[in-house]
């Protein structure tokens, strides 16, 4: 049987990878993916605590966390689209191309 430490270690490793991705990567969409990695690692930690504490709070918390993360992704990618389009729209040549 894996112990709580196993799960927490996995969660911590994924969290660190996600954090490093946010801090290091320049490609903004990969940064957003790294954020998802962070939230997933936290979910593992919550679910593991829930199981080993024999309570249901953590599992319900994970459901809320997943929900909130989904909403956050929608906003994050909408922001990305907005940024991308305003940068594009600044370029007149490409504006013409889009109309054609």
């Amino acid at each position, binding site marked *: 049987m894996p112990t709580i430490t196993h799960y927490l270690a996995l969660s911590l490793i994924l969290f660190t990878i996600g954090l490093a991705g*946010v801090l290091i990567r320049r490609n903004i969409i990969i940064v957003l993916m790294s954020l998802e990695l*962070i*939230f997933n690692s936290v979910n593992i930690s919550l679910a593991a605590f829930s199981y080993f504490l024999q309570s249901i709070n*953590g599992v319900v918390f994970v459901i809320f966390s997943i929900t*909130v993360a989904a*909403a*956050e992704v929608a906003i994050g990618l909408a*922001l990305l689209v907005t*940024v991308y389009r*305003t940068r594009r729209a600044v370029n007149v040549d490409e504006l013409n191309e889009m109309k054609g």
Partner: protein
Amino acid sequence: MNLASLNINIYSLLPLLMVVGLALFVLVLDFFIPRGGKRALGYVSALGLVCILPFVPMFIETVPSYAGFVIADTYSAFFNVVFLVSSAFAIFISIDYLRRLGSESGEYYYIMLFATAGMMIMASANDLIGLYVGLELMSMSFYILVALRPGKGAEGALKYFVLGAMSSGILLYGISFAYGFSGTTNVNEMAAIVYRLPDNNTYLYLALALIGAGFAFKIAAFPFHVWSPDAYEGAPTPVTALLSVGSKAAAFAVFLRVFAVALPAFHGQWSDMLWVISAATMIFGSVVAIPQKNIIRMLAYSSIAHAGVILMGIVVNSSAGASAVLYYSLVYAFMNVGAFTVAALASRGDGGEQLTDLRGLASRRPWLAFFMALFMVSLAGIPPTAGFMAKFFVLASAVHAGYYWLAVIAVISTAIALFFYARVIFYMYMRDYEGAELPERSLFTCVTYGVVLILTAVGTLALGVYPSAILDIAVRAVGPLFTI
């Protein structure tokens, strides 16, 4: 689960439900209002908030409701007043601001109302899950609001989003360890349980460090402040005002609730951490504000410095410190909203709120310059304004609790900060204006801004001259926190 044990109590949520109802009402109203008339929604929102304001102190329930998720005590009521006042101001000045930007939309108003609702959820959150969802409601609304400024808004918002979401992740990770340590997410249950647990558990250290870092992001404390100047600059100025006042006050509300109510047993562990953050934040904010050319960025760094001072009140973990935090939040709402209002009005509307725009303001718009000077004096912490009293109460509580060095650092940072606040006044009164003249304002614009400016100025002065009334309320408001 027995339904009666949930303690479903509609009264404890009534102010919140009113704000949410107002937001949904404005959302529906938006469908029927043609494109040109969106400002009507602004009036509805602002007046609605003003109407809700008197209800806030009427519904105080000391018993947690909704299975312990909500506590509508005097503490949350005090913060709710701060939120409602600052968002009413922010919405009021938005009406004209958006018209000038040419980006009037109904969404702006009701997302602002949702942000307010998020803050209120945070202030009355008695459970870490409720806290998290409230925080996310507020943060998400702000991500959108920041992006609603055409042009540079979206980029500032994206930066704010990435760092904000990362900090939410860190906070959530901390919450997971707090849950793992105590076996509960409820603040009261946690407070009751942690006394019986060993205080050298490493999950506890992780929980304290990560929750502290997560909150430090939200209040833009050093070194977690990087998002704030960009977001402040990119956002529409009224949103910046609300962001710097409301979201910060909400973050302080939960900061205090979590650390003072749930984890007072470990004051020794967390106070050192917050001490360092507080001291670094005060110094950093004041020093970096000096070279800023953009008035919004300058106010952003000033806001960072103020967050450091407010944090002192949490470090001391006493009734005096906590009441000083509440008092400071209210005062800060008045003076900072006022300062941003002048900044919004004085800028030429093309987005470049440069400090140089203020040159010669005293000769062109003597009243505006007077108000700005008043707010600057208050932000700098000079008597007889409210800013002085607020700082005084925080310092007094710190000294009283024996944090002498922290108090000294606060005084030094205030002295440094004097420089850039004075520079604003210097620009307004001692320099002549060059370049294009400010556009003439309609009478109506003058009235809306005038109302906000007069109210904030009166608030700034009144709280400075007669601090005792509000301070008494603040002391009573923090009562529930320190009785358990």
